[in-house]
């Protein structure tokens, strides 16, 4: 049974501070959606409201056609994987995994079979009689996963499940989580502050800030076509250059930055360009040229070696920018150069208010 999760106009307060502002989100049946953002953005609050540990000030949570909003947490039937695993320290691995089945009145023999099969799937059959204190971090996380999956919940939720693991294990576990989730086709909500993790594991990612979703889309779109300055900065567009259109010639637009630098941009590449806009570019998207040309005049600062390119801190009339130059001609700090946007690597954003 796969169902969709619908969050409608959720608002939440801690005391007088509003931590969620009219947040809506839907996760299609079988889909994995991540909530991504820095601490305090409201992602964990959202998860805790869906889980039933917090009451929203207003709004609704629906799972399929069931309204969960006022339902007690233990009656929601949601599989939850915690950041600190939250294993029962007094129960063995087997008892931890069968805990949820016991609550559902499953007979003991059946419990052992189902929990045993689930432990097999996560590769922990040999450790069934151990207590959690005798497990490594990765093993604990597998038990937590098995414990949430064995109750065959219509919705799985993950609260920063990998943040306590080391880097290598983190990558292995996220592949494993994704495989199990896809195999079961369980609708999932995944909370993380790690962009790489969110992008690699999710069908869609909601980037959150200050209690709102800034953009909800596939990882590809988020990475290449951020919808606003916040998301652009979040996904690594280091340079946001405000520009004003000075002349239009068919698809070609001439725009001017502060300090008089003038750029030629094509609407064939960027789509419609408004009169005032921002050009967003990663360091890759601004090429450092030692010869005079069309672009932003810059004085080069510190140079760092990235392996595939040199990166320069540049001072320009529009502020400090970061740009890459070729390996074939390293330039010394203090050199006057020109920064040329690489159109395919840049995108156009509405100006910030």
């Amino acid at each position: 049974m796969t169902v969709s999760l619908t969050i409608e106009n959720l608002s939440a307060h801690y005391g007088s501070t509003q931590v969620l502002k009219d947040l809506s989100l839907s996760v299609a049946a079988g889909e994995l959606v991540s909530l991504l953002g820095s601490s305090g953005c409201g992602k964990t609050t959202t998860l805790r409201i869906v889980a039933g540990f917090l009451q929203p000030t207003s709004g609704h949570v629906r799972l399929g056609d069931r309204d969960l909003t006022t339902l007690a947490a233990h009656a929601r039937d949601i599989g939850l994987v915690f950041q600190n695993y939250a294993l029962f320290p007094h129960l063995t691995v087997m008892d931890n995994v069968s805990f949820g089945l016991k609550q559902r009145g499953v007979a003991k023999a059946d419990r052992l079979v189902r929990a045993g099969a689930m432990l097999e799937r996560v590769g922990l059959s040999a450790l069934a009689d151990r207590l959690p204190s005798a497990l490594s971090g990765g093993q604990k996380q597998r038990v937590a996963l098995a414990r949430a999956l064995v109750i065959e919940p219509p919705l799985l939720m993950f609260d920063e499940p990998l943040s306590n693991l080391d880097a290598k294990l983190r990558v292995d576990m996220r592949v494993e989580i994704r495989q199990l989730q896809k195999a079961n086709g369980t609708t999932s909500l995944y909370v993380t502050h790690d962009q790489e993790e969110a992008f690699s594991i999710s069908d869609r990612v909601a980037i959150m800030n200050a209690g709102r979703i800034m953009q909800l889309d596939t990882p590809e779109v988020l990475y290449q076509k951020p919808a606003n300055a916040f998301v652009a900065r979040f996904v690594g567009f280091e340079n946001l250059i405000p520009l004003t259109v000075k002349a239009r010639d068919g698809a070609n637009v001439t725009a001017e930055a502060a300090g008089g630098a003038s750029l030629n941009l094509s609407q064939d590449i960027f789509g419609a360009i408004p009169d005032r806009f921002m050009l967003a570019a990663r360091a890759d998207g601004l090429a450092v040229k030692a010869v005079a040309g069309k672009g932003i005049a810059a004085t080069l600062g510190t140079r760092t070696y990235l392996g595939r390119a040199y990166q320069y801190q540049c001072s320009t009339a529009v502020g400090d920018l970061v740009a890459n130059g070729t390996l074939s001609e390293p330039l010394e700090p203090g050199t006057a150069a020109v920064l040329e946007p690489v159109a395919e690597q840049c995108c156009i954003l509405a100006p910030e208010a």
Partner: protein
Amino acid sequence: MNKFAKWGLTLPATIAVIVLLLVPVILTIATTFDEPKGPFSTYAAFFNSGFRVNILTRTLRIALITTSISLVVGFLAAYVIAQMPGRLKSLAIIAAVFPLLTGVVVRSFAWLIILGKNGIVNDALTGLGIIAEPLSMLYTEGSVIVAMVYLFVPLMILTLTGVLEGIPRDVIEASSSLGAKPVATFLQVILPLAVPGLIVGAVLVFTGSFTSYATPQLLGGERQMMMGTLLYQRAMVTFDWVGASTVAAIMVVITIAIVAIMSRMARRLNPMAV
């Protein structure tokens, strides 16, 4: 330098404990075996005296009842305190700590006013016409137990509040996310995790009440003598030092046995142990 430091720094305290505690207590116990009538004659005398055996069983009974009541009452209060919001919790803890920091004499004395012939309870009951003559509630086993429970409940509350607050919120939420109803979460998760704390609390209260002196002295008097008051009476009233030492030795043995058994139990039941 280090060698001198590590032993030298502990030396004064070590000497103090050995000279002022260990040797005197061992001497006290040793004298009980150095009797003309044979090494165990004073113990035989103790256990052949119905009066003294009665005191021992009474002391054990009172300690057991006090411990049981304090466990239930303390756990209830600690459970509620552990979920209180910050401010209320501080207030509750202050309210529990205050009696604890007030002396044993003062706290036992309060029950003299409450349970005495002209005490509040008698005043209320006669005033309401429920009884005609004031009841004799003092110098009964009940009065000793009430005062003892009063003495030890704060200790239990503080011990158990710490234990219950130490149970991670996650684990309790995990339980309810897996479908456990509140009662199931309490019985299957919270209670088992609190067992080590309950044992620590029980040991503190049991040894404390088993060896108490001031409370049975004030509320039990001659009629409800306990081991502590018996020891004092033998030593300072009848000057039977061998008898007093025998009582002391029995108290030490029982106390150490209880602590040893309970801490072994705590270790076995400790869920965190590997």
